[in-house]
C-alpha cells in the first residue's frame, strides 16, 4: 500500500475521520434522497466506475 492507514484503520482516509465522515454523509444523502430513481443512479455509478476502471 502506498500510504499506510492509521493503526486500526482500513484506508488512508481513516487518517481524517471527520473529513471522511463529511464525504460519506454527502454520498449517503445523494444515494438515499433526491429526485432520481435508484436504478438511474446505479446505472450512472456503474458507467462511471467502468470509465475509471474502479473495481468497487
Amino acid at each position, binding site marked *: 500500500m*502506498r*500510504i*499506510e492507514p*492509521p493503526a486500526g484503520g482500513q484506508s*488512508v*482516509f*481513516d*487518517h*481524517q475521520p*471527520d*473529513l*471522511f465522515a*463529511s*464525504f460519506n*454523509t*454527502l454520498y449517503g*444523502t*445523494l444515494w438515499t*434522497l*433526491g*429526485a432520481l430513481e435508484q436504478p438511474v443512479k446505479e446505472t450512472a455509478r456503474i458507467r462511471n466506475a467502468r470509465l*475509471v*476502471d474502479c473495481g468497487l
Partner: protein
Amino acid sequence: MTLDAFATWLPVGPDPAEPVDVFALLPAGEEQLRHLLRSVWNADVDRATLERCRDRIDALITGTARPPARDRPTTAQRAAADFAEQFVLDPHGCTDEQMHALQDHFTPPQLATLTTAIAVFDALARVRAVLARPQEGSA
C-alpha cells in the same frame, strides 16, 4: 472550484445569462456538499496549495485559466498540483515515484485531505463544465 453561481443552460430563470446558484437546485445534498467543501478548506493542507490544485483542475476541465499566482510554487505545491493533474487525466497513471514525492512533503493525514480535496474540486469542475451555458461564439 467553488459553489458560486454561474450562467447555465438549465431552464430555471427568465434570463439565461444571469448566474444561477445551481447547487441550490439540488433537492437533497446541498447542505452536505457545502459542509464537505468547508471541511476541505479548513483541514490541514494550506490554502495556497489547495488553490493551486483547484486552479490546475479548473484549467484542465473547463479550458479556462485563472491569472497565475504571483509567487512561484514551492516544490510541495508543484507536487500537489501535478498529483491533481494526474488525478484528472488518469488516476491509474499515478506512479510510485509521484506518490513517494508527495510523502516527502505531506503527512498521511494531509494526503488524505489532499486526495479528498482534489476529488471534490474535480467533481465540481465537471458539474460546472456540463451545466454551464456555452459562451457566445464558442463551438
